[in-house]
Each structure stands twice: as C-alpha cells, then as structure tokens.
C-alpha cells in the first residue's frame, strides 16, 4: 500500500477530491432524495439482469464451446454458426429483434393472449433476459472453445488411462482446467456485459440507466445524473473485477 502513495499520487488524489468537492457544492443535486427509491430499484434490476444473464449465458456457453472443441461436425457447425451470428451483429439490434420482432408476430396469433404465458410475454424483462443471455452465450462460447482446446491433451489422456469415463473426465479434468484458463477473460467479459445492460432501457426495462434518463427528462438537468450514473457503473465494475480476482486466486492455485 505504501508503494501506492507516492508524492505525485497524493497530489493527484488531492486534486481529484478537490474536484469532487467542487462538483458536490456547485452542481445541482437536489433531485437525489426524490429519485433515490427509484434509483435503488433500477440498480437492483441492473444487478439481477446482469447476474442471471451471465449465469444462463455461461451455462449455454459450456456446451457451445465443447461442441466446437470436441464435437462431431453436426454439433460443431451449428454452434459455430450461432456464435458467429451473435458476435457479428450489434446487441442493440438483437434486443430490438427479440422484443419488437417477436411482438410484431403477436397480432397474427390471437391465441397467444389467452395462453398461460401471456402475463410473462407482456412484460419486457423476459425479452431483455433472453437477448442478454444469448449474447453472452455467443461470446463466451467462443472463449470456452479456446479454453477447452488449450487444455493439454496429455491431461485428458492421463485421465482416460486412469479409467475415468468421458463424463468424469469432463467433470473433473477438462471443465475445471478450461474454466481456470478462461477466468481472466470471463472477468473482462462480465464487465462488458455490465456495459451492455443499459441497452435494455430502449425496450422499457427500468434499470439504472433508464432511471437516470427519467431524471434528466423530468428535471432537464443534463450532466449531473449522467455523472452519478457513470460513478455507479464504475463502482459495479470495480466490485466485479475484485470478485473475479478473488475467484482467480482460488481457482488458479497449482496451475502453471
């Protein structure tokens, strides 16, 4: 820690604090108490959308990566096509395609409104979750493909020599080692997913960016909500980075 606090750093941090104090005193912050509950709700929605989409996306990415690394051509080709399409088109387009594209089909099939799923299909968050999860799966499928391929073949052969079944080899050798190699990239990708979440505000999901937009529109204050929003995302990204660093330290023990 002492190495961090060199003279020039102290000056820079003091300048930054001075800037923050000046901003806190001169800019308009009166809107914060009124919108605090909405902001907390939005923050929570961002967090659970991020967490769920990363979880579901990763669960899909493992089979996608495995299919490309070791599967027969009739599994590898569709997996590769899926990853290519997802990685080749903008997420915003994918989100709009899922929400408005599917929505434009609803009037043609009136029986959908009477079905059990209708209360869920009416809302926006399922579409946001689907689009974000598929996007994460597409990118991580590619990452896991590289990770699975990079596990030395000797490890897998040794496992077979010990009599492990294919499932056991995967569960106890291939997956953990692939995961450990992919972990640094996955940390960066999770932060990228965090940065992708504001896009769902365009399909009426009220997450933290949508709350900031609402503050801007209600009060016509342009910069202050955006600055606070940027700070919120910095904080979230910092938490994610720290979390992954802790995970890396735990998982990579013993790996060269």
């Amino acid at each position, binding site marked *: 820690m002492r190495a961090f606090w060199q003279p020039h750093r102290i000056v820079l941090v003091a300048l930054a604090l001075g800037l923050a104090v000046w901003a806190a005193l001169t800019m308009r912050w009166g809107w914060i108490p009124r919108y605090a509950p909405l902001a907390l709700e939005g923050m929570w929605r961002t967090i659970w959308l991020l967490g769920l989409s990363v979880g579901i996306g990763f669960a899909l990415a493992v089979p996608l990566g495995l299919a490309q690394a070791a599967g027969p051509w009739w599994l590898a080709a569709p997996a590769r096509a899926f990853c290519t399409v997802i990685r080749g088109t903008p997420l915003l387009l994918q989100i709009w395609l899922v929400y408005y594209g599917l*929505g434009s089909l609803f009037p043609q099939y009136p029986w959908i409104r009477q079905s059990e799923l209708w209360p869920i299909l009416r809302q926006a968050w399922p579409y946001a979750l689907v689009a974000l999860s598929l996007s994460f799966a597409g990118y991580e499928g590619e990452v896991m493909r590289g990770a699975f391929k990079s596990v030395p073949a000797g490890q897998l052969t040794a496992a077979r020599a010990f009599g492990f079944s294919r499932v056991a080899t995967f569960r106890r050798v291939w997956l953990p080692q692939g995961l450990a190699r992919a972990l640094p990239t996955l940390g960066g990708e999770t932060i990228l997913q965090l940065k992708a979440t504001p896009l769902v505000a365009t399909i*009426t999901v009220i997450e933290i960016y949508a709350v900031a937009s609402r503050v801007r529109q*209600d009060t016509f204050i342009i910069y202050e909500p955006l600055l606070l929003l940027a700070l919120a995302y910095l904080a979230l990204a910092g938490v994610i980075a720290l979390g992954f660093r802790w995970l890396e330290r735990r998982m990579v023990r013993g790996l060269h």
Partner: protein
Amino acid sequence: MKKLVLTASALALLAGTAMADPVRVGIAAEPYPPFASPDAAGNWVGWEVEIIEAVCAAAELECEITPTAWDGIIPALVSGRIDAIMASMSITEDRLQTIDFSDPYYNTPTVIVGQRDIQMDATPEGLAGRVIGVQVSTIHQTYAQTYFEAASELRTYQTQDEANQDLAAGRIDATQADSLALDEFLATEAGACCEVKGVVAMDESILGLGVGVGVRKGDDALREAFNRGIAAILADGTYDRISAGYFATSIYGQ
C-alpha cells in the same frame, strides 16, 4: 503523399465543423406521422415538414432540417447543435425554464387510445390497473406520471411508434398521445385493434398551450423571426392550404 492525405482529411473534418449560417431546425429522428416521417428515399415528409418550409420562406430564413433524437433534442438546442426545435413540442412551464418558445402553431387535444375489448375511459379511475404506454420526454409522460401512475403501470418508449407497436401486440392496454398522431395509427391495419377511449382532462400547466417553435433562451431575434413567419402563413392562407392536404379541419386550435 501521406502529408497530402493527412491535410485533405483534416480539411474534410474541418469542413464538417465550419461556421454555418443556415438555421438548423431540429425535428425528431423518429417517425411521427402525419407530422414528420421519412419516406423510402430518405426524405422527410409530413404536415410539420411542409409548415417548416413555409414558415422559413415567409420569415426569409435559410432553414436546414436536422433530424435529432427526440429525448436529446432540448440538450441539442441548448448546446448549440441545432438552432430551433419544430418537432411537435408543446409549450409547457417546465420547458419554458430551459428554453423559449415562439407563438403556437397548432393545438390538438390529448386522447387515450386503448384495446377495443377492454372497458376504460380517460380518467385515473377508468385506467386503474391497466398498463399504459407513453413516449419519453413528452407532455404525455409528465401527465401520465402525474395522474395515472398511482393506479396504473406506466411503460415509456423511445418513440410513439414503438408504443403503438406494443399496443397492437397487446403488451400494453392503452396509450396517451396527440389525437392526430393516434388517428393516423388507428387508420392503419395494425390500428384495427384499438379505438379512442376519450379525451383526458385538461391541465394547462402540463399539457401546455399548444405546439410552438423552441429556441434558446434569449435568442429573441430568431423567436421574432419565427413569429413573423407563423403569422404570415396564417394570414395568407398557406397554413390552411397545407393543412387541407392532411386534415379535415383546422388544427390551429387557438
């Protein structure tokens, strides 16, 4: 050769940033028929587009129509990216704190349009428990947040078009918007799902006193020029001629 390319590209970028004299009139980049919508060739057409051209001609201004994202159109005006807003923007007290307006050039009632098979009327009680869609940064959003949010669920969309789309899809039960824009929607195939449920109770402080041209605070010269143009086209019949091509009755509403 490299130096030539470098200077050429620097000049090209500067040309894009050159000091310009035409008045950049901002319209919403999202379609808002029948007032302004893009056609297949990429040109903007509609009642408001024609009025802009007529007013500018009458006021002897060289106007450049500049599509701007609706929810950033006031910041764009304030920061100098555009010089005026003619995007069906209502004159409200909230907005008057940030920008100035010209005299109004049209005024139409605000209505609720909802699904045919649902019973509702344009009051907070009539809409209780329903899902209402509105466009962001509009007087309709403010009105709905003030009157309807307590008892109904509110969904905000980037464009009125998307709200209409979700209405047709059945995701929302009703939408609140300008009656003429919604009439246009009801006349389409998708609009067959729905009907006008009623006119909302008037609240001048929110719904405003009509639609006017937005200009920067203190830009009185431009404001007076637009006022002159609007008065001129009202007097010499250009306004009525243009309106006759779109609407059955006059929408001046004053």
